[in-house]
């Protein structure tokens, strides 16, 4: 039996308290960041290049550790999490990247199944779950296609299916529409919205202000490593 993700389904899914991140070279990427993302929210984290969005993501994924302050994901304080528990934390976070990060030598089915195999799930379960998730993202007929045979939007949907395959309580999308056409971007955002509708917390990190305006209920704007706006309805700060 595969070990379960270690994040709990708490009312506050992501919380940053007085978080500061200074890289070894002395660059301060985040400074005194305080924010809370609650269960079931659809949040855009908006900011231009170098604003601190990537560092924010790295802290949540526990790729980096905060220099000071507290980062809590699904009730787990990430500064106290053991190194060997990090994989189990990540199993509770579905991640979608701008460059899709699909393995070119694997079919759409294999790319999604891969995420299950690495977590040691039985083959029988994989054969049931992967077609279901591919169907959810509208790629039931493309399971045997390789990434090179798919459009940008379709590749991103495969990536989304991979992120969804563990039914994570949180989906994090890093510039998910950065490499696809505007009309396909809307499709991807609508899929994310649909995922959010069933209770999954969705965090989209982007620099595309218009997209955020159109889809979000909440926009957190980061600039120069600080949260400069947190609009709970729509709009966010200008940058």
């Amino acid at each position, binding site marked *: *039996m595969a070990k379960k*993700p270690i994040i709990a389904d708490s009312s506050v899914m992501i919380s940053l308290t007085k978080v500061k991140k200074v890289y070894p070279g002395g660059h301060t990427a985040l400074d005194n960041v305080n924010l809370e993302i609650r269960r079931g929210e659809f949040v855009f984290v908006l900011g231009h290049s170098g604003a601190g969005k990537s560092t924010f993501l790295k802290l949540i*994924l526990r*790729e980096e550790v905060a220099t000071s302050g507290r980062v809590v994901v699904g009730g787990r304080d990430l500064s106290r999490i053991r190194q*060997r528990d990090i*994989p*189990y*934390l*990540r*199993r509770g976070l579905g*991640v979608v990247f701008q460059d899709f*990060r699909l*393995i070119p*030598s694997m079919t759409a089915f294999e790319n999604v199944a*891969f*995420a299950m*195999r*690495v*977590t*040691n799930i*039985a*083959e029988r379960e994989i054969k049931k779950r992967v077609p279901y998730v591919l169907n959810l993202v509208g790629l039931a007929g493309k399971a045997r296609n390789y990434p090179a045979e798919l459009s940008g939007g379709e590749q991103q949907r495969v990536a989304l299916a*991979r992120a969804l395959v*563990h039914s994570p309580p949180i989906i994090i999308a890093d510039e998910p529409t950065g490499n696809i056409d505007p009309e396909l971007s809307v499709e991807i955002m609508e899929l994310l919205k649909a995922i959010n509708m069933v209770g999954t917390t969705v965090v989209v990190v982007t620099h595309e202000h218009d997209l955020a305006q159109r889809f979000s209920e909440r926009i957190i704007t980061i600039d120069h490593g600080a949260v400069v706006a947190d609009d709970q309805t729509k709009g966010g700060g200008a940058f």
Partner: protein
Amino acid sequence: MRLGGLRYLIKQGWRNMGANRLMTFAGVGVLTACFLITGIAALLSMNVGRVVDHLASLNEIIITVKMDVDDAEAEGYGVQLRALPNVQDAEFISKAAAFDEVKDLLSDYGEGLMDGIDHIFPAKYNVTVQDINYIDETDAQIRALDWVERTYVSNDITSIMLTIRNAVTYGGWGLVIVLAVVSVIVISNTIRLTVFARRREISIMKYVGATNTFIRLPFFVEGMTVGIIAGVLATGIICGVYYLVYEYIRSMYNVWIMSLMDSLIPLGEIWYLVAVGTILLGMLLGGVGTAFSVRKHLKV
């Protein structure tokens, strides 16, 4: 880990080998060469050791007893000799037996020449030693005995063989250590290139929650398989060459070589040692080499 997962990881390791055919081939080739040199050095060392031991068993200290000591008294001194450290055996030859020995040697001439002469030769002891390395010390201890006239030690060939054995043994071990380090570097580089080629896949694995063990295992399978293949190839080549050399030496009708044949080790006695040693070494070095190369890329 479930059996299916383990099977998947092993298959992944083999798939990597196929995907990086050229590096796998290079790794197997260099490792096989390393194992060949190591195996040949080890076999040479074992055989030289056996030949030296054989020569040592033939090597004797011949002692002549003072002429004024009669046979009965001289035979009694055998107890003193056998009590010395490093003395394996002491064979007594009386004055009469020594006389007969010479007489036999002279054959027909001895009959006429030695008629009427009685016991002109001293009694002797032929002493064999346990450890040829200490033959000089044993000789000195014997010479110190007051009933001993003189001793003869023919240790020239033995000392040459001892020098060769020591050179082969120390040189062989030195070679084994150097080649083990070379093998680890070769495997390490082979795996490092595979890891580098798959760094994107590894980073995806980390993001979807793969444990370090899960990521490492296919690389271990790859490293160990490269080591095992090199071990099997090296075993085949070493045993084949050894058999041919052994048979060639056996076919040489040279008295000296024929006398040494008994001390050479036949293939039947050592092939499994070569196989187990080389294959285990391959697995071990494959594992160690992999451990060195994968660590860096796991820090995501």
